[in-house]
């Protein structure tokens, strides 16, 4: 069986795709990559369909040994890049490693997560239509958990497709305050607290994981208590429990909940939010739904342009290689 042997697992490395939609009515979280743009770009670089499962790496990457004839891979989402047998491969381009090669990804602080895509993806059985790992529930991905030392992650392909490596321009995640649509329980808050939420900075605390991030900042006062009759939770929803400190709900969020939700981060800003780390400061700005939907469409158009800009890596020969080459023969045969 072709695979990647896990020598060191990193902090938390899981198999993720776009998530398992369609089962929230059974209490099953959607999961999926925290940074879906990185997932799609990394897959495009290795020639995969955009939703192919890849490895999502949090904070510190794994060390892997190639137990296949060869593998093509690409890392997107952090400038950390990867090393193949000690040679640096920058982020945002593909590379091919042959049998026995050691792939290493170090620690990084420029994003909470990054994606390592493998050409062909993994030879794993989908669970409820998805390969995303939901570690709390123990299902999906590789044995329902983060990778451990000694694991052999099975690959769908035995060898990389011959052809040039590819590179892409960096992803534009946008900038400025994180945009939020109010609702559905904005009337459960004092109007002054809603103003405060949009005026004050919030810091991401150490309690941040794939399920959500607890924020710390100006306290939000409930107008009608903090226990609602539980209702649905959307990706990016911001719930405010009795402490008055907001919690932003991310990929592994629960499907329903009983705290009032002041609003939700818009889809176009979720990849940027998913990249933020403990200690980072967030400012929020209010936006209406129609404008949020338009922002999402324009992000999609910009991303399509980025995918079209993917091109071959131009190999610049070193001086040594140039000196070894017999240039005279070339002249004569011409």
């Amino acid at each position, binding site marked *: 069986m072709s695979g990647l042997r896990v020598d060191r697992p990193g902090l938390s490395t899981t198999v993720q795709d776009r998530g398992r*939609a*369609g*089962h*929230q*009515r*059974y*209490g*099953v*979280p959607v999961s999926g990559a925290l940074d879906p743009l990185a997932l799609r770009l990394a897959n495009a670089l290795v020639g995969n369909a955009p939703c192919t499962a890849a490895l999502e790496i949090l904070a510190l990457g794994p060390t892997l040994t190639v137990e296949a004839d060869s593998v093509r891979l690409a890392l997107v989402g952090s400038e950390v890049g990867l090393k193949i047998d000690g040679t640096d491969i920058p982020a945002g381009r593909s590379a091919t490693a042959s049998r026995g090669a050691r792939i290493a990804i170090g620690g990084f602080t420029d994003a909470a997560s990054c994606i390592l895509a493998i050409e062909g993806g993994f030879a794993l059985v989908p*669970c*409820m239509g998805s390969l995303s790992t939901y570690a709390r*529930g*123990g*299902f*999906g991905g590789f044995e*329902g958990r983060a990778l451990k030392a000694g694991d052999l992650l099975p690959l769908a392909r035995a060898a990389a497709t011959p052809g040039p490596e590819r590179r892409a321009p960096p992803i534009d995640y946008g900038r400025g305050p994180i945009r939020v*649509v*109010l*609702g*559905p329980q904005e009337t459960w808050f004092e109007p002054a607290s809603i103003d405060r939420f949009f005026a004050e900075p919030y810091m991401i605390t150490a309690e941040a994981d794939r399920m959500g991030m607890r924020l710390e900042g100006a306290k939000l006062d409930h107008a009608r208590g903090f226990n*609602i*009759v*539980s*209702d*649905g*939770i*959307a*990706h*990016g*929803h911001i719930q405010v429990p009795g402490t008055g400190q907001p919690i932003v709900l991310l990929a592994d969020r*629960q*499907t*329903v909940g009983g705290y009032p*939700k002041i*609003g*939700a*981060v*818009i*889809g*176009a800003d979720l990849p940027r939010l998913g990249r933020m780390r403990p200690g980072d400061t967030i400012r929020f700005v209010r936006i209406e*739904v*129609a404008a*949020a*939907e338009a*922002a*999402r*469409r324009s992000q*999609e158009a910009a991303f399509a342009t980025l995918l079209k800009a993917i091109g071959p890596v131009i190999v610049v020969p070193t001086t040594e290689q140039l000196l070894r080459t017999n240039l005279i023969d070339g002249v004569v045969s011409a």
Partner: protein
Amino acid sequence: MNPRFLAAGDAALVVEYGEIIDAALIEAVQQLDRRLAAAALPGVIETVPSFRSLMVHYDPLITSRAELIQAIEALDTGSAAAGVEPGRPWRLPVCYDHAFAPDLADVATATGLAPDAVTATHAANPFTVAVVGFLPGCPFMAELPPAFNLSRRTTPRTRVPAGSVAVAQKLSVIYPAESPGGWHLIGNCPIPLFDARWERPALLAPADTVRFQPIDTAEHARILAAVRQGEYDPRRECVDQAAAT
């Protein structure tokens, strides 16, 4: 019943019928859920029913909040959807032995009923699954008589055993796995409620109906042993076998 349309970001919409737990609201949510399933509107990814609202998850690259509201308002005047399966009827075993019911005395005091009357009321009550959530496969079932309108425990337990049957807020719940929990434990149901390998991963779905069948500790132990041996398919507890398969 006219719903309110509330925002939940730009990829979900809340259709809300009220703010309380009430059988009529649960029914309104489930009817809309069935009508939406039958309508198969473009861009709708999935719907999540809860006690008093339906969350409609959608793809804003295919549809929009404005389009969806228009389509849902057009649906709402129609009758219940044909061709969409209604809830399945279940009869689930529960052991009310004191070993599984550490809060039975407290519930008896709070409801003003004798402990035996608490369990008898629970066993005789026809339940409808309103929500599956909190944990994968965890059913919230409505609705017990008004005496059972209990607050949750002041101090939640850090570990509630798997299978615990609990009550609060006129509802009953079964914990599908060990977890923290703040409800009052009055029994235990020994059968698995969630398995990621099942085609429908949760035994119970919103709109399913449930009645409890009291069992003694010996029967509870026998079922639990069979479950552990992999010799017990809980789907056989569906009263309507045609619906279960």
